[in-house]
């Protein structure tokens, strides 16, 4: 095991030991101090992230930092996370929250400061030391966010070493950290290879999956409202949130009005002849993965790369498509203001197209619908495989919670087993606790009073036993 990894984990273990002695009040004091410090640096950190990565818009990164501080704090501040968190005398059950231990937090380049702050807040609230492992392309701004949080935490009485961050780290040390026996958990938000490395490490891991979010504008939808909401979401930070819409699906009967609405709001429909150029620019032909050249860039910049002439103030590039799959690169996830467009004859075709999109790289993540027909909303929801099925909300903002939905505010969105994750939840403090259960005697008189000899009699089947067992208990 490498010396650097050993030192980092040793520090974290000692911090975990000290943290273990903190009560709820002392813990909450630290969390409040860290929230305030991070919130007060929201603009500085946003500008730094934008300057370092060149991704997105700094003004939107400020809002992301507000979500990662203000909304996350509002969401978690009243949660009981220390000691006895519930006491149910009727069922003889007491629940005790215990910290897990050192957490390795993998941070993506697309949300480098907001995700860092979010993970620090949920780790401190649960008394878990955190080791921030940023993207190489955003190491400075993630490190600065961690430094600000750490300074505030120490001032509020937190243990030394409760927040650590790694400036520049090679792949080998990352793997040594991930598989270190002193590490309790990996919170892996990032690309597929890093998430897979976390799963392969042998350390319990909470990862995320990729998204490929279809948004269905059903014919009962309020079209101007739907288009407005999609634009709010898809253009936010130039489309870097993994829950942002990737493809819009519309029924032919309303397609023209949806198109007009998009055009009136500075969207640009790419012509058939320009589609191959856009696809080549946005997606690597061999792997089918999005090109980093376009991630978080403006629509006009991407159009320029693809050799497409568009007005400078173009908000969104819309790429008409006829099918879904690897032969159609623009049907894949692209974290940029590019939206695939599917015009389909009817409701059933729309559902089928959404299923295809959902299963083309976005299983378990998020889907979205604009509709005022409850039956159709429910039918749509039942056919999808998504942790978040959003109705009449901008999906980027809706999925992270706190603004348009009552979901826990989170920058780590579970995608269930479809996305190779253990949960479909928005990851929050409850996922970072070991819950111990104290169980007092509460007898099952029906079971204890039943003649056990009946179970030993092989000739009696379930059909025979069932009525005997339930006699007088109906």
């Amino acid at each position, binding site marked *: 095991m490498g010396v650097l990894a050993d030192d980092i984990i*040793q*520090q974290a*273990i*000692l*911090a*975990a*030991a*000290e943290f*273990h*002695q903190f009560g709820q009040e002392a813990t909450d004091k630290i969390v409040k101090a860290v929230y305030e410090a991070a919130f007060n640096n929201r603009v500085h950190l946003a500008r730094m992230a934008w300057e370092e990565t060149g991704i997105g818009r700094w003004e939107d990164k400020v809002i992301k930092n507000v979500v990662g501080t203000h909304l996350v704090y509002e969401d978690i501040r009243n949660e009981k996370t220390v000691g006895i968190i519930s006491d149910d005398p009727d069922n003889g059950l007491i629940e005790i929250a215990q910290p897990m*231990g050192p957490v390795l937090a993998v941070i993506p380049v697309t949300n480098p400061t907001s995700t860092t702050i979010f993970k620090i807040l949920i780790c401190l609230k649960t008394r878990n030391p955190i080791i921030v492992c940023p993207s190489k392309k955003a190491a400075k701004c993630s490190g600065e966010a961690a430094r600000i949080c750490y300074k505030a935490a120490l001032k509020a009485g937190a*243990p*030394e*070493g409760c927040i650590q961050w790694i400036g520049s780290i090679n792949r080998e040390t990352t793997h040594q950290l991930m598989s270190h026996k*002193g590490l309790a958990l990996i919170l892996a938000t990032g690309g597929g290879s890093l998430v897979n490395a976390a799963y392969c490490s042998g350390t319990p891991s909470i990862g995320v999956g990729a998204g490929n979010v279809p948004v269905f504008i059903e014919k009962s939808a309020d079209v101007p409202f739907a288009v407005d909401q999609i634009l709010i979401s898809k253009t936010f930070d130039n489309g870097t949130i993994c829950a942002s819409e990737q493809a819009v699906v519309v029924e032919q009967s309303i397609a023209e009005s949806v198109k007009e609405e998009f055009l009136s709001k500075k969207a640009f429909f790419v012509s058939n002849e320009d589609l191959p150029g856009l696809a080549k620019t946005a997606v690597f032909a061999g792997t089918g993965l999005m090109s980093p050249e376009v991630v978080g860039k403006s629509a006009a910049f991407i159009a320029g790369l693809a050799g497409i002439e568009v007005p400078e103030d173009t908000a969104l590039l819309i790429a008409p498509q006829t099918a879904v799959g690897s032969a159609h690169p623009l049907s894949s996830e692209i974290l940029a203001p590019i939206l695939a467009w599917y015009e389909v004859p009817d409701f059933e075709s729309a559902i089928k197209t959404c299923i295809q999109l959902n299963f083309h790289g976005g299983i378990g993540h998020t889907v979205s619908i604009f509709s005022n027909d409850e039956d159709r909303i429910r039918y749509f929801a039942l056919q999808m495989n998504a942790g978040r099925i959003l109705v009449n909300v901008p999906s980027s903002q809706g999925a992270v919670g706190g603004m348009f939905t009552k979901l826990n505010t989170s920058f780590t969105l579970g995608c269930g087993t479809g996305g190779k994750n253990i949960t479909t939840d928005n990851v929050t403090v409850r996922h970072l606790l070991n819950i111990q259960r104290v169980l007092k005697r509460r007898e099952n008189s029906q079971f204890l009073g039943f003649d056990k000899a009946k179970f030993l009699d092989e000739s009696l089947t379930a059909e025979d036993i069932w009525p005997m067992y339930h006699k007088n208990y109906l």
Partner: protein
Amino acid sequence: MSTFREDGHQLTCVLDERLDTLLSRSFEEELEGKPLDRYTDLIFDMEKVQYVSSSFLRICIKTAKQLQPGRLSIIHVSPVILKILNIANITGICRVE
């Protein structure tokens, strides 16, 4: 303040109730001033101790590594502190009772 008691080749450190970062540092300075190689046994008496910081835990690890195996003992620990010493893997490198 922590107090030190010499008894032949044995040095006993009777530690304070709350070993926060500051007190741990001053204890570390005092301990560093002692000629530890003159004693066969070093004892940290934790009878009064109710809270330990990571700085104190670091001192335990550093001291255990400096001395020959078995020469550092941490005694009179409460159940709470015993758990903390276990979390910090200190029970594996010195005698704890």
